[in-house]
């Protein structure tokens, strides 16, 4: 049986970052500087004009002309998804409105982009929640570094 390995070389030492530190400015500081009344996380804003702007932006960049009906780039999985009739009507209204603004998209493509964005937001929200939980856990056990 092999014996226990012993590391005899010197340790490499601590790595120090000597570059310029980037200043972090929080949203509360920016809100105060701008004289803004409220800060709302983008995840909690529904139906705000900027959301429609984001939807338009993504459709503009992802709807590609393929010679036939313009396709939504990357959306290769065709699924039947149960929807309320009124939701489908709203998606059709949105598609009509966007088409009137020069962004040609079907109701299904609008729905696809909305689902994609919400899933991405959900993912980033979950990641932030995990990071915050880890920080709290480290502080609770006293093993966190001052930089946390």
């Amino acid at each position, binding site marked *: 049986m092999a014996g226990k390995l012993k590391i005899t070389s010197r340790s490499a030492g601590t790595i120090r970052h000597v570059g310029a530190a980037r200043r972090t400015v929080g*949203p509360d500081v920016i809100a105060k500087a701008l*004289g*803004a*009344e409220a800060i709302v996380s*983008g*995840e909690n804003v529904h139906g705000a*004009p900027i959301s429609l702007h984001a939807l338009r932006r993504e459709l503009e960049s992802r709807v590609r002309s393929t010679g036939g009906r313009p396709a939504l780039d990357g959306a290769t999985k065709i699924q039947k998804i149960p929807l309320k009739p009124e939701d489908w009507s709203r998606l059709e209204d949105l598609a009509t409105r966007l088409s009137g603004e020069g962004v040609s998209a079907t109701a299904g493509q609008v729905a696809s982009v909305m689902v994609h964005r919400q899933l991405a937001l959900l993912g*980033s929200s979950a990641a*932030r929640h995990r990071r915050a939980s880890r920080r709290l856990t480290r502080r609770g056990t006293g093993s966190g570094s001052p930089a946390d």
Partner: protein
Amino acid sequence: MIVYTYIKPDRFVAHLAGLRKFLHRFGRETNQEVVVVELSGPDGSWFFRIKEYDA
């Protein structure tokens, strides 16, 4: 009206006072009910709502 732009964080912070002046003037002189600023980055996005404008 929507203005969409990329920013350099340091320059953005350095010009916050000027941006405030512009946003409040825009809201006041064009009689907007609300002016909204959205900031998006890798850590998320925030909305800043301005409803009362500086004189």
